[in-house]
């Protein structure tokens, strides 16, 4: 297949579609009445659910705050609450950036630049979120042991060692996979941006 064949195929497929497809006022009416934005709203559902869980957890720790009897535990409690609020806030902020409406008057290159910048921001924020999960996991393990640990010190120690090891191994594999994916996207996007600004 040569480039000229590409042109012929391009023309031919267009003609075939135009012959077969009939766009009529009924379809336009239905489309106008339907809210396309509902599709976009569905996209944020995982972030919204995760945010509710995080904020719920922060509220729960807040209610149990009187059980944290030493300054160290109080510090850990406050730090955990802050992380539980900060993490979903970052996530929702990055998703909100995707909702910006389309400006069709912009040129394709301008739209691409905006898209690339937003994509880079999104990837960096997601990476930040995962990095912050490491201290959150450590703080959470200590808090869980304090709030729910009704066993002996030895049992609590075993729970913490097992929890730390298991949690960190899972998080390590997950973050390695995600970082690899995001680093690839960032590199591609940087190349595109360089080309656009060249």
């Amino acid at each position, binding site marked *: 297949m040569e480039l000229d064949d*590409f042109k012929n*195929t391009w023309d031919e497929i267009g003609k075939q579609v135009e012959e077969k497809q009939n766009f009529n*006022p009924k379809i336009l009416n239905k489309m106008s009445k339907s809210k396309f934005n509902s599709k976009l709203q569905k996209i944020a559902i995982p972030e919204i659910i995760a945010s509710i869980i995080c904020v719920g957890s922060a509220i729960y720790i807040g209610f149990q705050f009187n059980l944290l009897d030493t300054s160290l535990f109080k510090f850990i409690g406050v730090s955990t609450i802050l992380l539980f609020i900060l993490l979903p806030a970052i996530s929702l902020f990055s998703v909100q950036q995707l909702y910006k409406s*389309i400006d*069709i008057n912009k*040129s*394709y290159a301008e739209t*691409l630049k905006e898209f690339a910048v937003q994509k880079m921001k999104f990837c960096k924020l997601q990476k930040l979120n995962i990095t912050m999960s490491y201290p959150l996991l450590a703080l959470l393990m200590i808090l869980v042991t304090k709030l729910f640990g009704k066993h002996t010190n030895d049992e609590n120690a075993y729970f913490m060692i097992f929890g730390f090891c298991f949690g960190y191994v899972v998080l390590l594999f997950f973050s390695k996979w995600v970082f690899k994916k995001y680093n690839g996207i960032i590199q591609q996007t940087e190349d595109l941006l360089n080309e656009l600004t060249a």
Partner: protein
Amino acid sequence: MFLYLFMDKKDTFIKAINKNIGLIFKVSSIYTHNNEDRNDLSQEIIYQLWKSFDSFQQKSSLSTWMYRVAMNVAIHNLKMTNRKVSTIPLDEQFINFQDIDNSEIEKKWELLRRHIESLNLLDKGIIILYLDNKSHEEIAHIIGISKSNVGTKLSRIKEKLKKQILNS
């Protein structure tokens, strides 16, 4: 009077879409990976075209304006489809392109799509307009880069595609 003008606008728009539905199909197909996403994107393009139909001032040709809108919507849609968790229900899909009868053309079309898929988003936009026989000036106008830059980039893209074709 208002109703008459509205009906007139609607008729003109529908005629314009029917005349250029192939353009919408092709752009949607290039920027998506399956039929469902393609139909979703086509709907979104038509919806955005309808919303901004008043802003079309006939400074450029209708197809040039449509390409600009369609390609901008396609880029915007990319942000969403990458994160899509649930698809729009079928009864909300108003555009459903029928299969192409000619299997030879369909095969060639798939091959063309695969080759274009390997290009980055900027090159993709340029090659789409080149395949549609747009002049360098029109490509420069839609893409938003200089005419000389279009020439340079086009020869590089053609070279890349030729190599790809030879290796396939």
